[in-house]
């Protein structure tokens, strides 16, 4: 096993690591931590491993990471032989752009992520304010992806996806799940809708609860006029 992931199935942040590992085809050890209701990530045992007290946690031997952005970077540098998921060393501005949108992915956790925790577990928040900030974040991404499309770029920093796309994807894709507040559903954002389709089409894409994959066609379903031969 390459690394260990302390994981919670419903967490959008944990999903970032699971998704990237699947895309890269990396095997890892997964240890489930009960985020809710047990708050196991705040237990003395877990705080001993990661004092940050958040999930996910990624460990490699003695090294511990508690920020998903750092995890995605480490995974790209360690396992991505294509070199596409983190731009090469000769282009500081391309790297800076990826860093900028990695930073933005933190805003998504702080807005849509918080609103979602409130919907799922009734965590106390100023919901109206958090929803408003969530809409602001979605509009910012929508405007950016629209501008990218003017140059035929389908992803956040260019024609190919980077770890910035993967970092932003989960909470954007989950925003419709947060509630029916106007501006959280994807119907409001044509560029985001198309970007979600692009991410879901990536080889190695995996779903999580609330984020569905585009169904695999089974032979008999590919063409509904072809029926299975009746048995007997």
């Amino acid at each position, binding site marked *: 096993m390459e690394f260990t992931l302390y994981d919670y199935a419903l967490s959008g942040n944990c999903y970032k690591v699971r998704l990237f590992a699947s895309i890269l085809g990396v095997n890892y050890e997964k240890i489930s931590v009960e985020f809710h209701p047990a708050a196991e990530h705040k237990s003395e045992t877990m705080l001993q491993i990661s004092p940050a007290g958040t999930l996910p946690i990624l460990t490699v031997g003695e090294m511990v990471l508690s920020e998903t952005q750092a995890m995605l970077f480490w995974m790209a540098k360690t396992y991505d032989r294509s070199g596409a998921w983190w731009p090469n060393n000769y282009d500081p501005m391309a790297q800076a752009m990826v860093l900028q949108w990695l930073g933005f992915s933190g805003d998504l956790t702080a807005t849509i992520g918080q609103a979602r925790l409130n919907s799922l577990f009734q965590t106390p928040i100023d919901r109206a304010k958090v929803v408003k900030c969530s809409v602001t974040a979605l509009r910012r991404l929508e*405007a950016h992806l629209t501008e990218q499309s*003017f140059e035929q770029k389908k992803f956040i920093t260019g024609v190919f996806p980077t770890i910035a796309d993967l970092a932003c994807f989960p909470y954007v894709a989950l925003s419709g799940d947060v509630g029916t507040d106007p501006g959280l559903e994807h119907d409001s954002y044509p560029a985001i809708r198309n970007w979600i*389709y692009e991410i879901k089409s990536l080889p190695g894409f995996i779903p999580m609860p609330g984020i*569905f994959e585009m169904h695999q*066609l089974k032979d008999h379903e*590919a063409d509904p*006029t072809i*029926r299975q031969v009746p048995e007997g």
Partner: protein
Amino acid sequence: MACTGVGFSKNLSNARVMRAFVNGKDVVIWRSRSGKLSAWENRCPHRGMRLSYGFVRGEALACMYHGWHYGVDGKCKYIPAHPNLEPPKTIQIQRYSSCEKDGVIWVSEGIEANTPEIPAGLFPIRSMELHCSADVLKNTLCGLTSASLENDQPVFHVTDEQEDVMYIDIPKRKFALCFILQNFPHSRCFIHVLSERECAPRDKKWISRVLERLRRIAENRTGEAT
């Protein structure tokens, strides 16, 4: 029956699905793998699931709940739980008429559709949602004068106004824009903005940011009114 502009053709690729509102009605719009466009009531006849959550499979739309397949004629073609059953012909979704003209998707209730009167040969720029009604947006646009904007900002100039379409000039940059208005629930609207001439990406970006500025102004007005 009047037509509603629901978006741009380029924003709905083959095998993709979107949701829109037409006269307040919830509509699913989708393109089959071969590119056929359909617009239907956004409700699965089985258990009422929104079909806009569904997936395109070849020339059919599959409901995400129990996977019933509907062909472009709106008729149920296949029920996964009963693979050998010929679905009853009575299972049928209410269809809307849809058409595409100069890169805009138009939908109307009923089977006969009139295409709206917008000039041919316009270039789609951006579809954008606003949290204000189309009426507030119209009033905002008509009320904008150079005095209501800061000096270095472009002056909008409404040159023509119809029910769902407006023509706007931005003289400083010599842009002539066409706004197609679409009402959305919860006092929202969409604008689908086209340009009279082909624009470089840099110009499109500039227009896109001007539209956002316009949205801030119109939404602030809504805030003041309530």
